[in-house]
């Protein structure tokens, strides 16, 4: 079995309204040394291992992330593959 963790974040140049609100709230709680907060998505995918090569799997995940999980117009993604 394979686990893929995909992290999707808004591109730097895009105003992150959710991040801003969280930042404000964090400050309100009393942590005023916060600099920035960015809000993103975290998608865990469990795949039945089918003896694909790392290469192949990466290609698949890239495809998925580009087409579905992230919108390349506004978002970046990165991921990690965990084997167990």
């Amino acid at each position, binding site marked *: 079995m394979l686990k893929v963790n995909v992290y999707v974040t*808004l591109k730097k*140049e*895009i*105003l992150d*309204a*959710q991040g801003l*609100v969280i930042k404000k709230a964090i400050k309100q709680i009393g942590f005023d040394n916060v600099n920035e907060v960015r809000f993103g*998505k975290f998608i865990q995918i469990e795949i039945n291992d089918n003896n694909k090569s790392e290469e192949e799997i990466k290609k698949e995940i890239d495809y998925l992330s580009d087409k*579905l*999980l992230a*919108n390349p*117009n*506004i978002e970046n993604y990165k991921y990690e593959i965990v084997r167990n």
Partner: protein
Amino acid sequence: MLKGRKPYFGILVFPGTNCEMDCYYVLNNLLKVNCKYIWHQETKDDDINAIIIPGGFSYGDYLRSGAIAKFSPVMSFVRDFAQNGGLVIGICNGFQILLEENLLPGAMLRNNTLKFICKYVNLKVEDADNPFTSNYNKGEIIKMPIRHNEGNYYIDENGLKKLKENNQILLRYCDENGNVNTDANPNGSVENIAGICNESRNVFGLMPHPEASCEKILGSDDGLNIFKSMIDFISKF
């Protein structure tokens, strides 16, 4: 080839779409033109000569609004249809789907208020030289409701420049006197953009709901001219 025919609208239905009947009512009952629903699994339809992608929450708007709907089989039909010059209008969720499908440029972010917004807004018709807003006067101020979570239109600077060069911005949020300013921007959209078309001017996406403003009794009938413009365009030789 699409012109000069009797208008026949196809209204797409995805799981989670919820404005399809509102569109149907306007076309069928108020405007008395042919229309039918098209299930998202369909791959072709030879009857229709205009497509409406109505509002709602296709696939719950889970992940990102419009993101999952674009994988429905019907979308390749929509793509072909648009490429052949057919009229496609995406309203609210339909607009989001068109963006996700890259039939229109840009993307939708969450409203900068981080809240769902349901209210009437004023819109300025920025262009009347296209099949969707030809029945208005350029500069006219019209009233329609918005009802969305993610209507904060984003496009990068280059994209924006292109939109402007080609007069692709059709509607902007404004106040009742037609001023386009931050106070009149309900959701944070770039330059108050409420609706845009593609370069070939046959695909139109807008966040406000024209189908919900077609009768005085609902508070406005300003939306009617969107559909009438389309009908005129199709019927014309």
